[in-house]
């Protein structure tokens, strides 16, 4: 089953880089929301005496809001195109993260997103469209700190 030309044209779309400032308070609020008592994510004194020298981010947190790297901008153009392709319901299919360096409070990250792939598959409830969004996160020193591949399912 093929995807619509409108969706095909969105493959390869990249987004404007987004700057994310990683703040201690935002890290702490995120750790609170998950209910994670790990002192590396909330206790400045403890974190500063650890090997990291500063509060670090829990896995998957890169500053507020988490879904950046142009993901929301990509979704804004994808959602209507998916609806016109007959798949108006959007679900988060999953995510695949690779972490290369710790992310510390005070870091300034630049994230960029790309629509890596859009493909359709016949599921038990009809056509499902799988969109893969790739995001990279680079810190203020120009080092790649993390990469993610997220899958959006539309049905």
């Amino acid at each position, binding site marked *: 089953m093929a995807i619509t030309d409108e969706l095909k044209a969105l493959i390869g779309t990249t987004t404007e880089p987004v700057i994310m400032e990683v703040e201690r308070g935002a890290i702490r609020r995120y750790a609170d929301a998950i209910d994670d008592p790990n002192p*590396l994510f909330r206790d400045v004194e403890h974190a500063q005496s650890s090997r990291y020298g500063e509060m670090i981010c829990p896995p998957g947190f890169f500053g507020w*809001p*988490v879904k950046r790297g142009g993901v929301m901008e990509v979704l804004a153009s994808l959602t209507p195109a998916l609806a016109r392709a007959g798949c108006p*319901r959007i679900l988060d299919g999953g995510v695949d*993260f690779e972490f290369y360096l710790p992310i510390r409070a005070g870091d300034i990250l630049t994230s960029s997103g790309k629509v890596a792939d859009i493909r359709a598959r016949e599921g038990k409830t009809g056509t499902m469209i799988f969109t893969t969004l790739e995001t990279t996160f680079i810190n203020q020193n120009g080092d790649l700190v993390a990469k993610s591949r997220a899958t959006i399912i539309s049905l």
Partner: protein
Amino acid sequence: MAKQLYYEDVEVGIEIPPLVKCPTTRQLVQWAGASGDYYELHYDKDFAQAQGFPNVLVHGKLKFGLLGQMLTDWIGEGGILRKLSCSYRGTDFPGEEIVCKGRVANKYVKDGEHIVECEIWTENPSGEKTTPGNATVILPSRAQDKKEA
């Protein structure tokens, strides 16, 4: 502080200590604010029901966070989480227990790094794996510690 886990402590097949959670609707709202993900499916019951769900859903990325917590608790401050992936296969609802579990699938040394690969998942009260995934962690090694000391 918990005792540091070392590469030598880990064998293929051992289980990661499970992490039991039971997110409330309030926690979903808290997570929405802390993450900046305001999709209505996770706090507006009318919206969720119009989409065919009986109730609001626990965010997939929140379950990812819980799996991350299980792993960072296990590997301690001396361990590094290198990869974490999961698929949101099944829905979880607030007020229901989510048990994060995992098992060591493989261990090896590569380029001086002591690498452990794990299968991970969340389980709902019916025992279904709603969020299966994989993780790769790097652990300190007792042998290496000795050499450096």
